[in-house]
């Protein structure tokens, strides 16, 4: 550390200048903070923050590698008591698989209808992985169903899979998610009809739910009604309420 001799006037001048600058800089910081807090909201958060989240998405989705698999576990490690954390879109307790159909809207506007048995005919894939809720908890859970990418290939939906996003709704349209195509085509994404080796319970989305291990639980829509494809971002229930649209791992 250098020692120096300067006049008392200079000490005074330097001190006052430094303090004035310091106070001004801090005031400017507080002013900016208040400006952001008062901004118009975009999807439930101030616009600047939403822009920040979009920037994060752009950066981290560019490094997304669909060959990178989520860590899996033996079935013995799966929990027996699977946490239920939401019943949006499940209001009607009597869902009848005799009449329930999965609707898939194609690019040309046609809608395809699938019964649960149609889906079960495709090869079954099972996974035990760490299900992560955006709230911060996680659980090792065991699911079974059809790989989303297998479903796409089997029903020749490859042109649809060239679009940027997939949208999904519950039959009552109360809950809806939008998911980027690379994430949903990741080989561990399932159209899921089994949990712990048994048919899905109603509160876990019977007859068919989405299991997408590279996303938080909020994207794992229960009781799928409709699937559609789009280049525009499909509306997303929680992204409209302040959460990150991407919500991916």
């Amino acid at each position, binding site marked *: *550390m250098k020692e120096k001799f300067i006049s008392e006037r200079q*000490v005074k001048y*330097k001190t006052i200048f430094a303090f004035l600058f310091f106070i001004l800089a801090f005031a400017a910081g507080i002013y900016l903070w208040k400006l952001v807090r008062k901004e118009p909201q975009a999807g439930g958060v101030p616009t600047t*923050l939403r822009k920040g*989240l979009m920037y994060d998405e752009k950066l981290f989705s560019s490094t997304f590698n669909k060959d990178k698999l989520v860590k899996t576990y033996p079935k013995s490690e799966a929990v027996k008591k699977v946490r239920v954390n939401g019943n949006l879109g499940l209001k009607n307790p009597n869902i009848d698989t005799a009449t329930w159909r999965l609707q898939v809207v194609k690019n040309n506007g046609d809608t395809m209808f699938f019964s649960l048995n149609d889906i079960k005919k495709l090869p079954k894939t099972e996974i035990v992985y760490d299900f992560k809720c955006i709230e911060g908890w996680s659980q090792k859970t065991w699911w079974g169903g059809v790989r989303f990418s297998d479903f796409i290939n089997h029903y020749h939906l490859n042109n649809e899979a060239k679009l940027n996003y997939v949208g999904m709704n519950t039959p009552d349209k109360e809950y809806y998610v939008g998911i980027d195509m690379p994430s949903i085509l990741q080989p561990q994404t399932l159209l899921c009809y089994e949990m712990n080796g048994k048919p899905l319970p109603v509160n876990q989305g019977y007859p068919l739910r989405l299991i997408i291990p590279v996303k938080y639980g909020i994207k794992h829509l229960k009781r799928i009604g409709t699937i559609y494809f789009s280049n525009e971002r499909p509306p997303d229930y929680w992204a409209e309420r302040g959460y990150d649209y991407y919500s991916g791992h």
Partner: protein
Amino acid sequence: MQKIVKKHPLAIRWFHWINFPVLGVMVWSGLLIYWANDVYAVKIGGQQIIKFFPKSFYQALHVPFRLAEGMAYHFVFMWLFFINGLLYVLYTAFSGQWRYLLPTKKSFKEAWLVVLHDLHISKKVPPQTKYNAAQRIAYSAIVVMGLGSLISGLAIYKPVQFSLLARLCGGYESARVIHFILTIGYCLFFLVHIIQVILAGWRNFQSMITGFEVIPVKKPIPDENVSTSNLPQ
């Protein structure tokens, strides 16, 4: 004339005073996130000693039901925290300031002298250059903690893409524990830091804003045995 000593370079003052509010926002938004799954507690023999955190604490700080808001702030301000921290480390490395900062071999012994002296147990004044031994350890540790927060944070944020970091932290859940403990660490650091700054007095605090500290010039004592060679001639 007054004798001054240049203590804190301008860049370090910038980094310090930017870090203070930014880390504040990170801790606050982190608390909003933590609330949504507030499972940590300190238990001794099955008996809960401290719960993180009591209801009254949340209510006093208006924490409940602000998870989305917390995440939005956290994932925007993380950039400021990261960039500011990175620039600080680079500056410290290349300017040579690390010489005042990194603990030396002696520091770990001397740090005890500092603690004993500050607690008024020992009267022996420990050696002090820009920073004393305890400061060297604390200010270096806080940089390592920052790196720890960055790594454990990324492990929680993208546990699949950064699976290596998640493994380094001992898995997703333990990354969250590490991230939490480090945050408690910042709060304790802050507490001790504030107390020490108050005890060190205004001249010391002022130097973090002006960059220099005015050294009171002792009048030469009329004693032949005392050398005055270090005073201005």
